[in-house]
């Protein structure tokens, strides 16, 4: 479904600040894979997301989605197949547009944007039904401006919108990190429900190791631009946070004082 081959990215090449952000990354996701990624700050998790979405171009390597090359496609064309939820709850929605207008934008993801009315009666019914599944009462506030919603509500709406048209790949970039624990938990539950229900192929970056273990069917650990650990479903199910830390120590050969280092 998603195939990365030999991805390499240098930041500030040729200068004293040169940094290997990603170092020959090979990664294949199959349809329905839900992969969680952990790693300390600067490990290359966000760079990986940006390279898949097209926000950053790799120096080397190829990207394929559904057997088509995406390597040289601009970000907005890739976005027809890639849904994305950002860390900032404000980033995924347009604040001065109403909830239904935001939904109409999500609806148009994989289609040509024409001169048809964005929020037609038919679509309004569809938006109502899908918003009702969130159990947040947003379906009764279709004409409210999104800027009036709370951070948690906006992130739930972002998630619904990102997954609305069943994208080939869903990128979740620490999308619960900026929320309070209760909201973060409800967004985590919602993520699980949506990804399972729609059988989406998803890639989730998180700093929360428990979340990385609980969600998905595969776990990656990144460090210094490399994937240093790739655990399949069976091993992942038996995993605990101390196991994960021990594994990290073993691979890196460094004694970690606490999970603070990983959590950054």
């Amino acid at each position, binding site marked *: 479904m998603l195939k990365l081959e030999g991805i390499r990215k240098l930041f500030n090449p040729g200068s004293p600040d040169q940094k290997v952000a990603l170092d020959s990354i090979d990664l294949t996701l199959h349809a329905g894979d839900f992969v969680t990624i952990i790693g300390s700050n600067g490990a290359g998790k966000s760079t990986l997301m940006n390279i898949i979405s097209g926000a950053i171009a790799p120096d080397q390597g190829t990207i394929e989605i559904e057997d088509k090359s995406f390597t040289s496609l601009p970000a907005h064309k890739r*976005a027809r197949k890639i849904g994305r939820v950002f860390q900032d709850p404000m980033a995924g*929605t*347009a604040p001065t547009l109403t909830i239904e207008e935001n939904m109409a934008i999500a609806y148009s993801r994989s289609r040509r*944007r024409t001169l048809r009315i964005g929020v037609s009666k038919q679509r309004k019914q569809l938006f109502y039904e899908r918003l009702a599944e969130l159990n947040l009462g947003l379906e009764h506030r279709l004409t409210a401006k999104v800027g009036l919603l709370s951070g948690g509500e906006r992130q739930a709406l972002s998630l619904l919108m990102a997954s609305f048209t069943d994208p080939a790949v869903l990128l979740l970039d620490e999308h619960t990190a900026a929320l309070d624990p209760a909201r973060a938990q409800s967004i985590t539950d919602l993520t699980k429900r949506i990804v399972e229900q729609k059988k989406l192929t998803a890639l989730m970056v998180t700093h929360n190791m428990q979340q990385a273990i609980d969600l998905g069917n595969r776990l990656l650990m990144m460090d210094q631009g490399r994937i240093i650990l790739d655990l399949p479903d069976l091993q992942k199910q038996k995993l605990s946070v101390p196991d994960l830390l021990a594994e990290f120590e073993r691979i890196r050969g460094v004694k970690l004082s606490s999970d603070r280092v990983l959590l950054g």
Partner: protein
Amino acid sequence: MIWAMLGSVESGLIFALLALGVYLTFRVLNFPDLTVDGSFTTGGATAATLLASGNHPLVATGAAFVVGCLAGSITGLLHTKGKINALLAGILTMIALYSVNLRIMGRANVPLLSEETLVTQVNTALEPWFGDLALMAVLAVLVICFKLGMDWFLRTETGLSLRATGDNEQMIGSFGANTDLAKVIGLALSNGLVALAGAWMAQYQGFADVSMGIGMIVIGLASVIIGEAVFGRSTVARATAAVIGGAILYKLIVAFALRIGVNPSDLKLITALIVIAALVSPKTLQSWKRSIGKQKRSGGNRHVKA
């Protein structure tokens, strides 16, 4: 006095077209577009030159709209493909248009006194029914049509992507819309409207002049800001109506200022002051309201304690 007011409303309606254009860039796309000073003249120059060479007034006016769209898309391409800062892209196009406008006209001023124009045609055709209000009625219908057209456009799928581009560019990009294209479309339509206003103004005042566009961006901004401050901006339909009201109100304020003896050469200063007042006053009023509210609340608390 009433005739002076009629004149203000007429030119206010012409400026309403300009203000709708400025609304589209300044508010919808969140793009401060200074092309306006150039493209207003371009519209006037194109229409006047075509009229002087014997073309039908509708053709001349339509051509002005198209040329305005071209001017706007150049600013758009400079900004999106050339990665030039928005303000600078607009200024560059504006300066370039000054020479282009002289090229179009061939001289600094094209008089239309003996030509058949939309204004003379409207006056002769509709005078029996509307008398002196004929031009105003036609302009009002025209402006309302453009307002409704813009309301409709901003609710279409393309229009929504334009609004989201001005609102949250990262977001709309992540939903597969081409934000560069959205900006070029918005700037083209905006400057098309501005040029249309220029074309009407040339026919209204009976000439096109190379300096007729100076200060138009400020008048456009003044209309948008005054209109929104007075009439509100909660929805698109309301904001576009407010912008039209703002343009007429602005013209009335200027007419009033001239009537009470303000020197015409001070008008640009007064316009700037009006815009500053309209920008500052809503915030100031809010903070006053808040502080008064606090005083009341704290007063109430004291009362309860006592």
